[in-house]
């Protein structure tokens, strides 16, 4: 078990617990965190689970793959540490991670 902190665009904080192997999108939806839609259920088809990983955790999540990169490239709020939450599979090493949510999902 571990914890991830989600910070909404208006700075509201939410903490979600996870078991290794879940995705960031899944735990956000399961914890009813506003600001992450995950409309396609995690098939990397919709781009509605954009998160911005805090710099110090980005080495743990790694960089987006080619198709994820294309999805992110059209997001106006794209940051250098942006990821799609459905493509970030949580490991025990990510316990304590903080991610920010954009103002709008695509």
């Amino acid at each position, binding site marked *: 078990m571990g914890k991830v902190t989600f910070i909404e665009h208006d700075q509201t904080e939410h903490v979600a617990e996870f078991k290794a192997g879940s995705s960031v999108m*899944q735990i956000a*939806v*399961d*914890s*009813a965190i506003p600001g992450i*839609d995950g*409309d*396609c*259920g*995690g*098939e*990397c*088809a*919709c*781009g509605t689970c954009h998160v911005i990983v805090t710099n110090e955790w980005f080495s743990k999540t790694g960089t987006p793959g080619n*198709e994820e990169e*294309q*999805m992110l*490239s*059209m*997001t*106006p709020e794209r940051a250098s540490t942006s990821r799609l939450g459905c493509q970030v599979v949580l490991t025990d090493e990510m316990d304590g991670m903080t991610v920010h949510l954009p103002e*709008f*999902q*695509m």
Partner: protein
Amino acid sequence: MGNEPHPPYQRPPLSKNYLTGDVDQESLYLKPRSVYENAGHQLRLGVRVEQIDRDSSTISLSDQSRLQYDRLVLATGSHLRHLNAPGADLNGIHYLHDIADSEVLREQLVAGKRLVVVGGGYIGLEVAASANKKGVNVTVLEAAERLMQRVTGPEISAFFYDKHRGAGVDVRLNTAVTGFEEGDQGHVAGVTLADGGTVPADIVLVSIGVIPETALAKGAGLPCDNGIIVDEFTRTEDPAILAIGDCTRHRNLFFEKMQRLESVANAVDQARTAAATLMGEEKPYDSVPWFWSNQYDVRLQMVGLSQNHDQRVVRGSPEDKGFAVFYLREGCVIAVDAVNLPLAFLVGKTLVQQRRTINPELLEDPDTELKSLVNGRLQS
């Protein structure tokens, strides 16, 4: 209220990752049960709503209980179109619509067995790809002259034909099914064809589409015509009753006509509109429809409806890592089908939303960056 024993769940994986056993059942749930409990929402599962009595604002349930409503939302989805042909009741002939169907079919997908898929649409082809991955010998029979004819253009159909053939799936076009042959103990042994031939089969999947589930609405006297008729706020003729998703034919502001859509995106967006309507906010539904399908290593993303196009522009080629087909009508982009090219899908989404007239040469030209074709931000 749901007649299945499961909490609301994602159906797309039923023909893909769930069918192959790569994800577990809980991962399909839209939300874990605790989210409903914490919100004070009661889930009544495994119970069927038998009737709506609008005069008394009550619904009758299959467990003989009744429930009063102030507002009612119908999200009854669709039911399978069945194939009426001799032998259609034989054992081993499957349909795929819910978790139970997917689990039964999964048990049958054993390497070396022969699966015949009747119908070359999204579901049939996704199952073909999943079964092929399991080492099952797959044959796909499609009555039309190309795959996914109802939803895509000839370039995409041809690409998927080649993809399936290349993977070892025997795809037969222009092939109508007339019935099923019986083998031992009432089990299917083969599929008979209009040309007189037979395809031997251990397992058959019939995937020939769905029909909107309108019985409950019809029984309550609500207007239905190829779906429950709703306005852009998801209201039926009775303002106390809303309807959303595959079961509806809705007034679509984007297409300026009545439209029925079978898609997750439509279901989710209509649900948001319904929630707003229930809360007294008028937020009309005007989303551009979009769809996706995963088969093998191919991600197909589609936006808009291509049926009435008068011009197609292909960007890239099927030999490339990704390519896309832009569908235009009177110079305006009305739909895009993108294969392993999410950028074209997203750019297309904006072009379709904005009803943009665009020089087809720019769409085709590899030196024109896709991103440069859209001005301003994507709509949220």
